[in-house]
């Protein structure tokens, strides 16, 4: 199989955000990387169905999302199991100044229903428009909007966002200091 260099580069370029999306979805780095790998394999096998000039990233996100959904149905219980794997990966990461905050946030994110989680991440972190996110999730734009809103509300409840004192820099600093692992 030969692949035009531009296609290959576009795939490589999408890998970092694909991984971030996958980790956000399944909460486990090893499984997320498997998911990304499977996505690339699937994409390569179907590269002829990709239309040059269209959004490679959105195409790959769609594949990954669909793979995750089918896997999720298969092993629902395991997917819920967010063990310490993600935290482990963060420990090896040099520039982590707010690991505690990250872990808190990740734990809350993992409690969201998958529909809401993926919508929030696509729009709130991956940088897709509501329209693009709707295409990736194969649903209406209004559905994405309401999922994002519900996700935000639920997250804020889980994280007890009551005001600037409870969340944000001060909270982070305190959490990190009390965990004894701070660097500023």
């Amino acid at each position: 199989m030969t692949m035009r260099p531009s296609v290959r580069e576009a795939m490589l370029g999408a890998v970092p955000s694909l991984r971030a999306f996958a980790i956000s979805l399944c909460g486990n780095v090893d499984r997320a990387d498997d998911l990304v790998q499977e996505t690339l394999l699937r994409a390569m096998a179907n590269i002829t169905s990709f239309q040059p000039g269209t959004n490679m990233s959105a195409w790959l996100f769609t594949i990954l999302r669909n793979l995750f959904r089918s896997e999720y149905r298969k092993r629902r219980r395991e997917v819920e199991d967010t063990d310490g794997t993600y935290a482990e990966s963060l420990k090896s990461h040099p520039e982590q100044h707010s690991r505690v905050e990250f872990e808190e946030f990740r734990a809350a994110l993992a409690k969201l229903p998958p529909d809401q989680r993926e919508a929030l991440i696509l729009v709130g972190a991956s940088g897709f428009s509501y329209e693009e996110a709707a295409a990736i999730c194969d649903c209406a734009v209004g559905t994405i909007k309401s999922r994002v809103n519900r996700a935000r509300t639920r997250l804020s409840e889980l994280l007890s966002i009551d005001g600037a004192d409870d969340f944000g820099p001060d909270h982070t600093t305190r959490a990190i200091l009390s965990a004894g692992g701070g660097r500023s």
Partner: protein
Amino acid sequence: MHTDSPTRRTAGRLSREDQRRLGDILQRVYDDVVHQGVPDRFRALLNELEEPGKNEQHSAPSRAEAHMAPGGEKPESDQVFEPEGASDPRSKGQH
């Protein structure tokens, strides 16, 4: 966890400030992974798919393993880094 925050039980509407805070941390958590770049296994995978058998020397499985799993065995890595054989790494994705 539903009961430990009595102050804010609004009707599902967040202030702009709260939305900004949430969005900010979501972005940082996400970017933390994005900034890790492309792990070797994916570079090797695409090379391998493009030119099967031509770039074993770039595969560097041990480095990828060290990067991915501090101190754990990696059962899935042999799917990519079949030392020899490398029969058809695509078979997994072709249904």
